[in-house]
């Protein structure tokens, strides 16, 4: 009987595993290639000016991406500004303040937020959060911070602020779970050393927990940003979907993801389809780069 | 005891060396092991005993960055020869590890017969026979015969280790390596294993690394004393423990060193 040496048999498995791994790596490259290919007509006709033009008018076959880039960036940034401190504080609450049995439950609950489908967030946003923003949050902000241009103008409920609020809830689990795992790595002796200097708990946390974790926290924030940039459904349902650039947080807008969700299935001119693919490519690149950036922070952090 | 001296040599190391990266862990060991004897290897921790043992069935090379040189002869054939399939070496030189390590999510029965089964033996009666005889040799049969289908990991630590011994015996290797098999066990479980080793000796050659000198003195026919990758002394256990030739050995067994 023909019998392979065991090393040869092992090599066979190894090569099968390698081939499948290469297929997966190829899949990622394939995604990039297919997007570039589909976006090519738009890239050729508009080039980089696509990024700076403000007009998005499928009827006239005019496509400029600036309103969507603006909408994506502004909603994600507001979401980050809200979610970052909240996430860090929750992570500290779980790791430093709660007893172990409780911390389990709370962290499970926070992670449950990540499990809720974004369509449900959107639904809740339409029927609960948007009316709440219109009736309570917007008047409150106008009353107290109305001198800022961003808090001026009428609020219809849906708009930048509402989309950003829902985004901030959605990205908290991403940021806080990473922060939590970083804070858990802080060795007990460092905390004790800080206590031994007479620190209060707050001072200990500042000194021994947060300070050494800054790179990890920043990578968590960048990963949260990546999540926010690409979030589609909830934002689509809450942002109002009009390609305008407005200085008011109450006004409707549109994001790169939301315009794709809204128009892709109905796009009928080749340039329209291609321009949407151009947006998809851009969104892919932005999230890709931010995730890559987050990885490198973690890497240099763990090396140093 | 002296008739062991005339028994056939079954395993032989010749100028065996081993490295972890740049660290020279085993430095030129030459020694003979005779059939159906128990051979103990003692020495201070970190002296390369385990690494040496792991070279005898070529499991050392499974760790990345390791290297070996020299020869190990099993019944006169060098197991490090390029034409030899490492799998065949390990079928003939079994091993029991420091920590009891029954395979997870596998029944007691499956644990014992998995070696045979994965070699292509699927006849149920053969497997059951082997399982029973090996579990008997490992002094575990009476305790598990009614629950062969419960998980291997559900047993106590001592029972798990005996299960691992049965698992190793099932492949029927003439030589059995044991790497501190009782260091994770309590004294009663340890005594059980020492007892069964005397039975095993009737059919198998055992080479056991132990950190416990009393154990070596109790059970072994021959003892080697290792320090920093060198074998200081090898001989009949009765000689080593009563009348060592080397000063270092004497210091170690009398507790002045190590």
């Amino acid at each position: 009987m023909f019998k392979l040496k065991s090393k040869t048999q092992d090599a066979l498995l190894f090569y099968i595993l390698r081939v499948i791994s290469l297929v997966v790596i190829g899949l990622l490259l394939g995604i990039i290639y297919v997007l570039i290919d589909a976006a090519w007509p738009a890239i050729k006709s508009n080039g980089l000016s696509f990024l700076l033009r403000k007009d998005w008018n499928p009827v006239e076959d005019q496509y400029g991406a600036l309103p969507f880039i603006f909408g994506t960036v502004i909603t994600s940034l507001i979401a980050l500004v809200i979610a970052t401190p909240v996430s860090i504080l929750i992570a500290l609450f779980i790791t430093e303040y709660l007893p172990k049995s409780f911390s389990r439950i709370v962290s499970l609950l926070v992670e449950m937020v990540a499990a809720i489908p974004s369509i449900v967030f959107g639904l809740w946003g339409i029927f609960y959060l948007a009316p709440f923003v219109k009736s309570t949050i917007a008047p409150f902000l106008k009353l107290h911070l109305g001198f800022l241009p961003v808090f001026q103008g009428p609020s219809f409920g849906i708009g930048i602020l509402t989309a950003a609020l829902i985004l901030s809830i959605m990205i908290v689990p991403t940021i806080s779970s990473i922060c939590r795992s970083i804070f858990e790595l802080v060795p007990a002796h460092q905390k004790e050393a800080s206590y031994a200097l007479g620190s209060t708990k707050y001072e200990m946390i500042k000194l021994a927990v947060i300070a050494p974790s800054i790179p990890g926290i920043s990578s968590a924030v960048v990963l949260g940003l990546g999540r926010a940039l690409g979030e589609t459904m909830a934002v689509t349902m809450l942002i109002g979907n009009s390609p305008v650039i407005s200085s008011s947080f109450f006004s409707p807008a549109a994001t790169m993801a939301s315009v794709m969700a809204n128009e892709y299935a109905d796009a009928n001119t080749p340039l329209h389809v291609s321009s949407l693919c151009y947006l998809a490519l851009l969104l892919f690149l932005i999230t890709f780069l931010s995730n890559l950036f987050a990885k490198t922070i973690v890497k240099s952090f763990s090396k140093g | 005891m002296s008739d062991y001296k005339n028994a056939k040599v079954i395993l032989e190391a010749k100028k065996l060396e081993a490295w972890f990266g740049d660290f020279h862990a085993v430095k030129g060991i030459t020694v003979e092991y005779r059939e159906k004897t128990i051979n103990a290897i003692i020495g201070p921790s970190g002296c390369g005993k385990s690494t040496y043992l792991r070279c005898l069935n070529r499991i050392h090379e499974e760790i990345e960055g390791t290297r070996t040189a020299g020869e190990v002869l099993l019944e006169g054939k060098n197991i490090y020869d390029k034409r030899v399939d490492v799998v065949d070496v390990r079928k003939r030189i079994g091993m029991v590890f420091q920590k009891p390590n029954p395979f997870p999510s596998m029944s007691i029965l499956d644990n014992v017969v998995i070696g045979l089964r994965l070699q292509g033996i699927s006849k149920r009666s053969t497997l059951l026979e082997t399982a029973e005889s090996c579990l008997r040799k490992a002094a575990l049969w009476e305790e598990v015969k009614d629950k062969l289908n419960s998980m291997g990991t559900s047993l106590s630590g001592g029972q798990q280790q005996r299960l691992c011994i049965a698992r190793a015996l099932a492949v029927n290797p003439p030589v059995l390596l044991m790497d501190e098999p009782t260091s994770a066990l309590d004294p009663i479980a340890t005594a059980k294993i020492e007892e069964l080793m005397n039975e095993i000796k009737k059919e198998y050659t055992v080479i056991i690394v132990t950190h416990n000198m009393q154990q070596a003195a109790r059970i072994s026919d021959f003892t080697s004393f290792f320090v920093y990758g060198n074998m200081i002394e090898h001989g009949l256990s009765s000689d080593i423990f009563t009348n060592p030739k080397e000063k270092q050995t004497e210091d170690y067994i009398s507790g002045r060193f190590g």
Partner: protein
Amino acid sequence: MNYRSYRKFKNYLFLILTLASALAVLIPLFTIIQFVLVQGASSLSLNFFTELPKPVGEAGGGMKHAILGTIYIVLLGAAMAIPVGVTCGIYLSEFSKSKLSKTLKLTVDLMSGIPSIVIGIFAYLIVVVPLKSFSAFAGGIALSIIMLPIIVKTSEEILKLVPNHIREAGLALGLPRWKVILFIILKGSVSNLLTGIILAISRAAGETAPLLFTAFGNMYINYHINEPMASLPVQIYTYAISPFKDWQRQAWGGAFVLMVLILTMNLFARFILTKIKDKKGI
């Protein structure tokens, strides 16, 4: 003395802030759950599971087609993602030192960060365009790309929990490494791997964006892989943005079913995974 009480004050203030942050997330969580439960339960009836949608204006009707469609598309995606994902998990855990393995790890990390809408567009371009039709198959492809990184990562983690001495014990029996990997390590971890798969399925089942222009949706039952197929999330979306009160109620019913389905799977998988990790941690 004054400085000391200031420090104490800051200390308490910080505690209150952390507590407030926890509430800031838990309150929305609970209102969402409460909203979905109350609104959803009141719009649910047996008909919801057994009937098809009725035309606008007629009361009643259900989402049988969407529930079946979601199961169909998710299982289709899982069938493609599981073999590839587990294989990659094996490669990452058993050959973690190789260069390709590191590249694969990075690839998988980056893949998990791709916005799901982009994956939807990709699936549209490679399946819908050449086949000239929206189809359940395209939806399955999109969901499989979403599940893949999750399955790879959990498989890797789970297989890495198997201690090295178990592998050595297998090798020491004279088994070639591939048999040790497949018949001892992998087989011994099957039930644990399943939890990772459930986690991936629970994620994919809630995805809407990748299905919008792949599986698309319809209003009747379809079992053909090459035709458009309804799914719960897309159906909820269609109903939610419609102006009809009756449809909006249906959307809540759908959200209720989807949430119960997903949270049960998710919590179950997480519960098991923490248990596994705890056990190995000792």
